């Protein structure tokens, strides 16, 4: 999903001043930034493209934004459940055309700023731990590359000995350390129309978007002085593009669901400033064999059943009813406070998928809400 690169802007404001004389608040609205009109010199996601792997796991130069975004539900052999999310997000300050780093003598010269978010949900204790990192790309403080595949932000890294799986994820935070091994069980799922995900009507307000909907996951989690050997399933979203939101869009709800029987479903609904859903909403269902079906907004019915109020007063929906075709599910947060209380606040946490008719848990997943 579109991650929160406005967080970066927020940070820059705190660190070095306010870019706009007329906006005294350091917190910008999502539309201010995601709808950024200054796209001069950047490539844009305008046409469908041919994806090829593993090359597309690596970086795509020329676009403003790109991210590697992992969520997963894991548990110990004894059945103690945890969930995690890790994001590597990069944004360019200037387009390549304006790039002044012509000489490599000046190692600090950089176009790109990176943000990292990591969180662990301790489901049985109902505690959520979050961490955040920022850095400029150069001199080698963060980056992404192939041969072999590697994405890193300071000492956080997602890497492989070769270009393909398994990948290793290493995250060091104050509260926890994650060391996981990830292997794809299905081929990449191209979201939107053949991987071109249109976010608002204007051409180019889109991204290239694919997902690895089922990554077999195993490894270790260090938390509270204990080491847990965990295993489970992860999901990775990959997106790159230059601009996304239109002026009347303000946030979104994003679901990534993995069903026990081997199907996956991704759906996002964009929200208007007044809270209504925006017709740009979209999704995709993946069958056991990897067959994809695009989900149109009119096929999806989402109802908000229960909300949780963050300390700042923002309401987040922690219990949803989702009706798709002839399915009827309840999407229930595993616990309510999975708030990402970092530079930019949002809610991101593990959910259970419950069949409405039987009340049985039929899957697990992740939910992100930006308000």
């Amino acid at each position, binding site marked *: 999903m579109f991650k929160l690169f406005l967080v970066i802007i927020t940070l820059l404001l705190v660190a*070095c001043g306010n870019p706009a004389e007329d906006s005294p608040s350091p917190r910008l609205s999502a539309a201010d930034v995601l709808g950024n009109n200054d796209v001069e010199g950047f490539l844009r996601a305008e046409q469908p493209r041919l994806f090829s792997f593993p090359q597309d796991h690596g970086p795509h130069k020329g676009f403003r934004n790109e991210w590697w975004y992992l969520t997963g539900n894991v548990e110990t052999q004894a059945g103690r459940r945890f969930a995690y999310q890790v994001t590597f997000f990069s944004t360019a300050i200037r387009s390549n055309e304006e790039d002044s780093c012509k000489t490599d003598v000046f190692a600090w010269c950089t176009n790109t700023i990176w943000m990292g978010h990591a969180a662990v949900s301790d489901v049985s204790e109902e505690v959520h731990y979050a961490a955040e990192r920022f850095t*400029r790309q150069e001199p080698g403080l963060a980056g992404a590359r192939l041969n072999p595949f590697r994405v890193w932000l300071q000492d956080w890294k997602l890497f492989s000995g070769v270009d393909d799986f398994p990948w290793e994820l290493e995250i060091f935070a104050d509260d926890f350390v994650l060391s996981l091994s990830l292997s794809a069980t299905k081929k990449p799922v191209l979201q939107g129309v053949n991987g071109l995900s249109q976010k608002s009507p204007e051409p180019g307000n889109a991204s290239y978007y694919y997902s690895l909907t089922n990554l077999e996951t195993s490894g270790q989690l260090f938390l509270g002085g204990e080491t847990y050997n965990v295993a489970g399933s992860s999901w990775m979203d990959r997106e790159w593009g230059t601009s996304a939101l239109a002026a009347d869009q303000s946030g979104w709800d994003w679901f990534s669901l993995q069903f026990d029987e081997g199907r996956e479903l991704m759906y996002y609904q964009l929200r208007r400033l007044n809270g209504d859903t925006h017709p740009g909403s979209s999704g995709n269902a993946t069958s056991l064999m990897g067959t994809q079906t695009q989900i149109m907004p009119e096929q999806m019915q989402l109802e908000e059943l229960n909300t949780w109020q963050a300390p700042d007063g923002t309401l987040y929906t922690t219990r949803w009813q989702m009706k798709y075709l002839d399915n009827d599910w309840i999407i229930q947060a595993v616990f309510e406070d999975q708030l990402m209380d970092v530079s930019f606040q949002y809610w991101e946490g593990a959910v259970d998928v419950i069949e409405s008719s039987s009340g049985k848990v039929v899957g697990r997943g992740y939910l992100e809400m930006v308000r």
Partner: protein
Amino acid sequence: MTLPGDNVMTDMPAKKAASVSPGFRLLLRSALRYAVKRRWQTILNILGIMVGVMMVVAVDLANNSARQAFDSSLEILNGQITHQIYAGSSGISDNIFRRLKTELGLQRAAPSLSGQVRVNNRELTLLGIDAISEGAMQRSRPGLPDQAFSVTGNFIAAIGSIDSVVMETNLAQSLGLAVGDVFSISTFRNIQGSSRQATLAAVFRSPNAELTGELILADIAAAQYLLQRAGNLDAIDLVLDEENISQIQSWLPPGLMLVEADTRNDNLRQMSEAFHINLLAMSLLSLLVAGLLIYNTVTLSVIQRQQTLGIFRALGVSRRQIFSLVMLENAAVGLLASILGVSAGFVLGSYLVTMVTATVDNLYLNLAVTKFFVDPALLLKGLVLGILLSLVSGVLPAIHAARSIPVTLQHQAAKDSEWQNKIHLLAFPGIILLVAGWALLLPEYGSLLTGFIALTLMVFGFCLLVPIFLYWMLTALLILAGTWAGLPGVMALRNARSAINRTGLAVAALCVAVSVTVGVGVMVGSFRGTVILWLEQSLPGDLQLSAITTDIQTQSFPENMLEELVGLEGLLSMHYSIQEQVESEFGPLRLGANNIPAVERFYLKEVTPDGLADLDAGLGVFISEPLSYLQKIKLNDSISLLTQNGLVDFPVLGIIYDYTSGFGLVQMHDSLYDRHWSRRNVVRLTLNIDNEFDEDTVQKSVRDIVDKQGQQFNLVSNRQLRELTLQIFDRTFAITNVLRLLAILVAFIGVASTLMALQLEKFREFAILRASGMTPVQIVSLILKQTTVLGVCAGLLALPLGYLMSDILIDVINRRSFGWSMQHFLPESVLIEAFALAVVAALLAGIYPAWRATRIKPVLALREE
């Protein structure tokens, strides 16, 4: 205070008497009339205190501003950090920062790089920032932009760019720059400097603009580009907790050092403190002169009014009241003069501050802030000091006044001759003080404070000897020039000798005043002379060639250029020199290395028997004198330097004179350097010209070869280098010269006012002389001769005292403050200047009394007799 014989009105509290008694009001009126009548004397008196107070206040304010600038600069450049990582050599590699972040994941770490630059002929500090690292650093750096600042332009555009900068709105305006403008920024790293183009990406309005008023902010990438420091940083700033410290200590690659920020800053601060103490001492010396001046003039005013006061005593005015009157006069003069002095000091201080900060800047730390900070407490201190000084200096004369005998006729002459016998008694304590002062100076490593105490003791001791010296001088003059001088001359000399209690005091005051100018003048002259000598001895070769940019990657001399130079006719030899900063157990030091034979390139102070040969063989190092003195390192000791293999002890083979900066200097041979450092930084090429060829011609040929490389290299002759060094020297010591000029001013006022008072006192005598048939011309001649003789005596006596003072300043004060020792030079101009000052001031002092004396109406004057 209880006064002897103060029992006439014991039942009347003095305070009540002072405010109510009509008699006291009468006294006040008489005092006022006296002050108006002797207005020139009153004005000079006020002026003397005023200048004294002015100097103290100005120096205090300037010192304080420089200290504040020092602290603010540290605050802005460092912020609140706990540690810094320093590398040996010149700067820390970018690589280290990357590894610190990617291997250790250290969050509260930020790169640090700043330097002096010049924009539109203004000297500014360019500060490199990695705004993203700063977010995690969370250090307070007052003055740097945060969200409270209003910004015009695009701040974010500056991030990661190599040529964008931002600055405070007012600074941009004063430089005539607007957002989007492209302008030149040049560095100081080379004599001719070289510049690069920068774009002003944004301006911001800061709530504390005084902190950022001389600061250009740039991304760390732009800082490297604009400061021409590609590839390295000054340091890495850190905020660490206990756990981090040990983690980093064990991780740190050899060649790097983890330093506590406070310790390092305190070292720098202490070094610059010695300089501030020196300035303060000079200003206090002037205040001391002002004190002597007050004592002198108040004494004279009391003597002059002896008769009036006697009449008041006869009328029943108590001793306490007369004492109060004189003290009240002192307080009034003190108050008025202090108010004027504080005001003038405020104005002068705002000029001095640039000089003081220039010195601190040259010697210790690049100051990013140079603002005139006014601490009201310092103004109050000046005011109180001035008033106290006038009161304390006036106490003795006031007691003297209170002792006035209630008779109408005074026997002044009888009293004066009494004094002639007492001057011998004064000489004994004088000698004791001199000896005590000398004894205090004996230990080699004394404190600065004992140095100043010794100086004060010796000055006072000398003062007590002045009356007897003067008596002898006058007697000798009477014998030598008695007949030649004529009647007025003889009278002038006899008169001065018989009034030795007053003339002695006046001459002592003048002598101290003038000697300050001699002492400081000789000191600065000696220093300058020494620096010239040092430059001649320690600058090898004839031409120095260096790379203009100091980017590591671009720093080497092209082979083809070297080949051409080798083939050049008239060029005898070439040597590489390496200059960089190295960390040591004593903080940062400068390190120099080359393969020029030691004999040719050092101004040696001490050396081990085989020191020169051993240095050439790479067996040890030479260290600079300040380093040796301040850190108490002796020959054959060793010094620990941070090399690329960690700390290494180097034997000290010699101690060399060095006057380049407050930091220490370590010199070694190339071969030793190569063993411990693999990277060669800031390479300079020293060229020797064959004596048989014309220097200018060879220099021109060299320049032609060098210019073929474009604007990459900088060629300077040693002659130019010497001139430049002396320019920097003069800039560094400009403040000392200003204070010396002010001391001259105080001295001048002192001489004039004291001698004028002496003459004015004698008016009745002149009237009698006129009545006895002396012509006005003869009286004028008498007055001018007497003031001149006293001026000459003061001038002559000031020379040995000044020389003594300069000795103490050179060998004790400067050494204890900076660790520098210097050769003694006696600049004749200083001596002539001082002597002329005394004589001219004395002559001028005689003019007004002489002019008044010609208008005496003997009859009127005599009527009072």
